[in-house]
């Protein structure tokens, strides 16, 4: 196994000094070159898990290994694409992308050449000398992906990278991300709250339960050789995940709105053909 997460526990201190358990005994194995998504209600600890893998945070118990090496601190072999692009506004696009390479003691020429290649892959060749504020949200996120890819990481950690984008931009970036994934064979660990996004992109979807966060179910998304799935199959997988999540959603909503709230009475989804054996 490439990425192994073994018995991870993590709690935070609340304002009242109580211990709030966010991750409870997480065990997960991810194979090299695979695309795994984590979905779950907000606050279920999925981003926390990603930060732990990145080494930005420390677990209370358990260990995480990438390619056999214990994760102790952040490292360029496990780069993160954050929800906000997080580009440095005082650097140009090219300088932003070469930032990590120069830290790896690469010469400036080599770094720039490599950065240009990757920027070409995300279709931003024209904007190498622009400053981040001159780019649209989607372009910024592309730069952020380029900045991560240029490091040739073992694993690409993505923390809701498209959730701040508009629908059309998101669709385009989904397609591009899949192309990049097939081309580079990079392992992707993708955190999202968008079920459709998870099903569209990944091979495996890990569904998280909340309070405390733990793995509820791991679903393998049926994929075709060419990667294009019939809509019906996708929809079916989506609904399966949604029904698993429904219980969790209710738990969250009850906590937020009080116990008299019932979510079950108005279902979120309905079978497309009146349940006449359509799920067989």
């Amino acid at each position, binding site marked *: 196994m490439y990425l192994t997460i073994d018995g991870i526990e993590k709690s935070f201190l609340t304002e009242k000094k109580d211990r709030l358990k966010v991750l409870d005994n997480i065990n997960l194995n991810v194979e090299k070159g695979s695309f795994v998504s984590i979905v779950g209600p907000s606050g279920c600890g999925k981003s926390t898990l990603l930060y732990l893998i*990145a080494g*930005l945070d420390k677990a209370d118990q358990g260990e995480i290994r990438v390619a056999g090496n214990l994760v102790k601190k952040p490292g360029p072999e496990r780069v*993160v694409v954050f929800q906000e692009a*997080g580009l*440095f506004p*005082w650097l140009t696009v090219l300088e932003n992308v070469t930032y990590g390479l120069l*830290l790896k003691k690469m010469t400036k020429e080599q770094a720039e050449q490599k950065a240009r290649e990757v920027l070409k892959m995300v279709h931003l060749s024209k904007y190498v000398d622009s400053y981040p*504020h001159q780019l649209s949200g989607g372009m910024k996120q592309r730069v952020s992906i380029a900045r991560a890819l240029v*490091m040739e990481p073992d694993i690409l950690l993505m923390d809701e990278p498209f959730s701040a984008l508009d629908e059309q931009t998101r669709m385009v970036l989904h397609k591009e991300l899949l192309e990049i994934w097939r081309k580079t064979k990079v392992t992707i660990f993708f955190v999202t709250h968008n079920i459709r996004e998870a099903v569209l992109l990944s091979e495996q979807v890990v569904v998280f339960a909340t309070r405390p966060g733990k793995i509820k179910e791991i679903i393998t998304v049926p994929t075709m050789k060419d990667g294009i799935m019939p809509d019906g199959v996708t929809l079916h997988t989506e609904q399966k995940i949604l029904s698993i999540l429904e219980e969790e959603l209710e738990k969250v909503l009850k906590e937020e709105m009080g116990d008299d709230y019932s979510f079950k009475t108005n279902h979120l989804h309905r079978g497309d053909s009146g349940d006449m054996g359509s799920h067989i």
Partner: protein
Amino acid sequence: MLDTLVNGLINGQITTAIGKSLGRILLGFSIAIVVGLVLGYFIWRYKMVEDTLGFVVTALQSIPSIVWFPLAIIWFGLNDMAILFIVTIGATWTMTVNATSGFKNVPPLYQRVAKVYGSGGFHFIRTVILPASVPQLISGLRIAWAFSWRALMAGELLGGGGGLGQLLEMGRSLGQMDLVISVMIIIAIIGTIVDNVVFSRLERSVEVKWGLRAR
């Protein structure tokens, strides 16, 4: 009066004084920037320093720098060093306070990004913390400059040293009102030039580069 102003500029009386004053403030101001940045760094970085020194700095900042003058005279004598001291001290605390809040306001996202890419130590300070706090540092510089400029004039007025302040005092004792007013005009002009040309331009160029302001 205009005659005095023009003559003073030509025959060197006012020009030398300007040179002396500017030299002094540049030195004092530079020291203040360095000290302010270093103190700001420690206050930002270590909680214990913040609890102790941070509080003291806030208190010190509220002391007008000319108040330090009697102390400075005792320490250094009535000379250049005493003036330099109050010029520096006038700018240091403001610079410290601004540097601290500038460093504190660096978005955690930038810091996380830098960490992920393996930055740390001095590289982290140089490539993330300092550039990310530049807008705030510039406004700090601006206020610090204003403070030290005032301190310089007050110091020279009392302590001599051949600058514009001393010229002012000389004009007073000779009863030469035209000289006094000429020097006042020069002081106003230099203050305005530095604020409007140097700092405003610096501020604008950063704002444009960062996209905080339309071109």
